[in-house]
């Protein structure tokens, strides 16, 4: 028990003293998850809205594929992107393997189906009368798109938060594409795996606390936004 208590004490010290290595690790996590979620939002939300509103052959199948991809294992993404970025792969010349960019690419692939899939559900969940109402009021397609986004904003926020939560806490992509390079691609989850494998409890625990704290903060923020809007 003393072992665990000492670990907790040391973890709190690391957090309280703003340990440089610790801050660097947290910043990598926030930056990669931020960039990939931003990309997934910019592409996934419009894509999801289109799929939800348009009718075209194969639409149901597409939604099913999106929903399946929402549970895509991170190691599969890691493997696929790795094979493209490695020196033997088609994009090898870019030298992107083991870089922050490679992590963002992998995390984007992870987040996109989540953001897009949940956007589809959010828009489909809206009142069915909106569409004819907007049309009868003479809204052009740009205006009605804005109305839809506005009406579905809670669902959309939820989609983005879910995407961020997934990439922020994942380890497979970060480990395989980032390579856990100290001071460069080492993020919270890969650092935790390494520290545990080295039998170093404190740093891992400090990072775990931050991981949970960020998850909590985002959910609180989301809750506040929702309440304010009501």
């Amino acid at each position, binding site marked *: 028990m003393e072992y665990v208590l000492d670990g907790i004490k040391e973890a709190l010290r690391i957090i309280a003293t703003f340990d440089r290595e610790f801050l660097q690790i947290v910043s990598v996590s926030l*930056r990669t998850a931020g960039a990939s979620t931003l990309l997934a939002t910019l592409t996934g939300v419009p894509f999801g809205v289109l799929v939800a509103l348009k009718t075209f052959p194969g639409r149901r199948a597409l939604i099913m594929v999106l929903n399946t991809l929402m549970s895509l294992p991170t190691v599969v993404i890691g493997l696929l992107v790795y094979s493209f970025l490695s*020196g033997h792969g088609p994009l090898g010349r870019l030298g992107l393997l*083991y870089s922050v960019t490679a992590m963002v690419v992998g995390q984007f692939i992870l987040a996109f189906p989540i953001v897009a899939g949940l956007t589809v559900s959010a828009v489909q969940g809206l009142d069915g009368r909106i569409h004819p109402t907007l049309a009868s009021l003479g809204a052009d397609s740009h205006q009605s798109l804005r109305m839809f986004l506005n009406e579905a904003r809670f669902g959309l926020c939820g989609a983005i938060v879910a995407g961020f939560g997934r990439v922020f806490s994942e380890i497979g992509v970060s480990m395989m594409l980032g390579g856990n*390079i*100290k001071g460069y691609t080492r993020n919270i989850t890969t650092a935790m795996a390494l520290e545990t*494998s*080295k*039998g170093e409890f404190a740093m891992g625990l400090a990072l775990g606390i931050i991981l949970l704290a960020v998850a909590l903060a985002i959910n609180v923020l989301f809750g506040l936004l929702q309440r304010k809007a009501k």
Partner: protein
Amino acid sequence: MRTRLTMVVIVLALLVNPGLAKQFLKLATTTSTYETGLLDHILPPFEKKHNVRVYVISVGTGKAIKLAENGDVDVILVHAKRMEDKFVAEGFGVNRREVMYNDFLIIGPRADPAGICGLKDVQEAMKRIFNTKQRFISRGDDSGTHEIEKHLWVKAKLRPEGEWYLEVGQGMTAVLIIADEKNGYVLIDRATYLVNCNKVRLVKLVEGDKDLLNPYGIIAASPYKHSHVKYELAMTLIGWLTSPECQKLIAAYRKEGGQLFYPSADKPMR
């Protein structure tokens, strides 16, 4: 619309690369040089002098060589002479230089159920572990340490398999921790053992056989196989690691248990 797009691009660029892009070099190395803290001791002077960041990817020797063959890293610091020779002979690596050496140990439970404590002959020790079916933890990851271990089994004409033989596929420190939790025998490089010896209950049992010597070599990835590798910078790093200044730093790197690595750039062992 265009201004928004510009904003997004700027935000993305800042997230991906917040500092000014400095030139960098990718070094793949074994877990034993990295996790012992040696590289944190000898790389910063080089980084400062040449204004370059060295990104260290810590994997087993087998994986490090693969990475260099694929052009994914610029230079490797590894320890498996046979694999290194093949790597150079096939034209993937150039300019192998020996940097330093230490040796391997067999450590295990203090009670020593296989009765190997104090043996000078490592083959005899392997035979006793095999015959008594005592738990043995293997790296199982094609690392340099794993290569040596496999070589020792082959030399003793034994084929380890069964419940007592665990291949865990992880780095040296991780394997040491696992061996400690499982109270088994393990082949380990002296540096990793010395750095962690007061974290574990396992004790040193066999050392001193010449089959247990462990030389480390540094090799640049060939620019003829992959034109994008940073050959000149890699050569500068090789120059630094084999310089008298850095060799002195290596010799001076000690932990409570003693000296971890012995410089050997000017008197290669093989």
